[in-house]
């Protein structure tokens, strides 16, 4: 079966299975162990984290049951294939929200723990892993271990943010957070340049519940870093106008490469900026519309054509953010590597995983269509990130080298030590793991 990451840059051929019961999952791990296995959730990581060329892939989509729910605490136990969409649908009307949510509701909870995902409320609530109580982890030897910060802190820290390399999560217990409504009031404000943007973030990050910035990565000169800052709070029930939810549309096929060029993207970004009046505006929208704006268009990744695209996401610490972001944006602007709107957000603190992405600082994410020079460009951005003491997000990455990984993730040796302990035969491996030297570089199951 051929699988790709969301960026569709690499196609990986592997043997896949899709268990529907826990018993089948356990049997699949035992049966496939010798070939090397990785879990594949919603397939929303951009690069090669869930791919395993020449090995085995276990799809978790059909293990999607909610196993328990405590309405007094918000504690819930789920199978790994439950999606954010499920959580929003089932629990938002009952006053609970996922503690952290990525920008797509099609991501699974297994994927969310494996990447220790962050949402638009990171300053306030931390990342997904911060809310996990325990994980039932299916290990290489076929046994199941209940992993928690108390029971085996190191294995817990290697599993949260560990990109599936410690084993397969078969059940996850976490706490949801109270949600004071089904809609949010979103306040949008124009930011004329990077300084204004960073100052505004500094002002609101400790008080706003949700905040996210959209930045025009093609703006240059005095406009560098201009964009829109969105902050959001739950809306009182009285403010909500009833209306049918909009139907999702889909991009039916790959768009030819020329559709996205510097001019069309520039025009789009200009439009996106001007759409918000100079004095800002305020709207009340369904929570899910605010969290998952791109989900309204299924398969939007096809707009980048058949060659696919890269997403670059880094975080820079507060202290170096201003200079570092300026440097990154200058580099991006110079290359004119047409990119849609970029996202700028604040993160509040380190995650609990050895390879967790978050640190206190600013995170920038943007897409690059895969065309000549894209890789060289990304390597430059990678270098700037390292120079500024930042790191690149593995859930998005497809290019990082083992050396860069080490420079960005200081706990890498602790992580490797856990892998050596719980998975000495490298049963769990992926294209990402081999690329980053986390597992032996050779492919498994015959051909690399």
């Amino acid at each position, binding site marked *: *079966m051929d699988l790709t990451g969301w960026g569709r840059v690499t196609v990986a051929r592997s043997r*896949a*299975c*899709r268990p*529907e*019961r*826990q*018993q*089948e999952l356990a049997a699949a791990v035992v049966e496939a162990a010798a070939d090397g296995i990785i879990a594949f959730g919603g397939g929303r990581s951009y690069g090669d984290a869930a791919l395993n060329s020449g090995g085995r892939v276990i799809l978790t989509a*059909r293990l999607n*049951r*909610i*196993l*328990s*729910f405590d309405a007094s605490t918000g504690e819930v136990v789920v*199978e790994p294939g439950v999606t954010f969409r499920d959580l929003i649908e*089932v629990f938002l009307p009952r006053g609970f929200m996922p503690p952290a949510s990525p920008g797509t509701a099609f991501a699974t909870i297994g994927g969310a723990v494996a990447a220790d995902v962050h949402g638009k409320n990171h300053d306030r609530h931390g990342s997904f892993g911060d809310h996990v109580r325990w994980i039932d982890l299916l290990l290489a030897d076929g046994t199941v271990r209940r992993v928690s910060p108390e029971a085996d802190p190191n294995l817990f820290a290697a599993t949260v943010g560990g990109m599936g390399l410690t084993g397969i999560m078969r059940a996850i217990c976490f706490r949801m957070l109270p949600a004071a409504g089904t809609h949010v009031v979103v306040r949008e404000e124009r930011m004329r340049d990077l300084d204004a943007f960073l100052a505004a973030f500094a002002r609101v990050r400790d008080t706003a519940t949700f905040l996210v910035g959209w930045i025009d990565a093609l703006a240059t000169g005095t406009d560098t870093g201009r964009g829109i800052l969105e902050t959001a709070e739950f809306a009182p029930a009285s403010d909500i106008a009833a209306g049918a939810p909009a139907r999702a549309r889909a991009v039916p096929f790959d768009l030819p490469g020329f559709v996205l060029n510097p001019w069309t993207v520039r025009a789009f970004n200009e439009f996106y900026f001007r759409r918000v009046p100079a004095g800002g505006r305020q709207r009340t929208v369904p929570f899910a519309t605010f969290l998952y704006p791109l989900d309204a268009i299924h398969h939007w990744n096809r707009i980048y054509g058949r060659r696919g695209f890269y997403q670059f996401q880094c975080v820079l610490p507060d202290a170096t953010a201003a200079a570092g972001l300026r440097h990154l944006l200058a580099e991006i602007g110079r290359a004119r590597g047409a990119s849609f709107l970029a996202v700028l957000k604040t993160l509040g603190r380190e995650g609990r995983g050895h390879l967790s992405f978050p640190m206190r600082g600013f995170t920038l994410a943007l897409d690059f269509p895969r065309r000549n020079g894209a890789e060289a460009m990304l390597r430059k951005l990678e270098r700037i990130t390292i120079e500024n003491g930042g790191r690149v997000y593995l859930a998005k990455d497809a290019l990082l080298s083992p050396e860069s990984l080490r420079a960005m993730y200081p706990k890498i040796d602790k992580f490797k030590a856990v892998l050596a302990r719980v998975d000495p035969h490298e049963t769990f491996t992926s294209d990402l793991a081999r690329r980053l030297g986390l597992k032996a570089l050779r492919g498994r199951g015959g051909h690399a």
Partner: protein
Amino acid sequence: MTAAPETWLVLGASSAIARAFARAAAQDGADILLAGRDRADLDMTAADIAIRTGRRVQVMDFDATDLAGHAVLIEAAREAADGGTLNLFLAFGLMPNQSDIDRDPALALRAITVNYIGAVNLLQVAAPIFEAQRRGRIVALGSVAGDRGRLKNYVYGSAKAGLSVYLQGLRARLYRSGVTVTTVKPGFVDTAMTFGLPGLFLVASPESVARACLKAAKAGREELYVPFFWWGIMTIIRNIPERLFKRLNI
């Protein structure tokens, strides 16, 4: 919580279509009884449906080949329906590889026992209860494989063909009591049975099949293909002369 006016007994409830059907029926306001052999698995599905929908969901042991146990199960289901209407969704089945069957006659017997004898016995046991109830819906999953005996799947196909004829008769019998019997013939559905098989086209999701089943049941439809265009495909396949058909490798 009070009992719902309708209760669906879902037999063979670990399969993807049955799970999706149970979820859909609960979302529609029915209580659910999940019956099958893998109790640990059914307990998880039961928790899931109860949490998602707020309906009552219970688990019952059921083995299609344990014919003596069918009466006990049906009686327990009738009690669980608690005075409301009991409905049946038959989703259990066994589809071994034809080549495996050809090597092992016992496997042919097993396939027939699960797919035909098990279903017939269960429905014979249940029929009087439905006649007494004077309402209710029965939905059984047949198969397009039952429309024509094929080289690749003829034992399974013959059991489903038998079941289809049986259901026609049962339909006529229960019609007189206001009970509807719906035979659903799914084409390619994205389930464990078909996952990874080459050469499939226009594969339907279990959720869409489940929704179609529920809709057809509520409308009291007699027979339907899902997706609907399988009716056309099977009409063609049924009309190929046997003289030619026997040479085909399908």
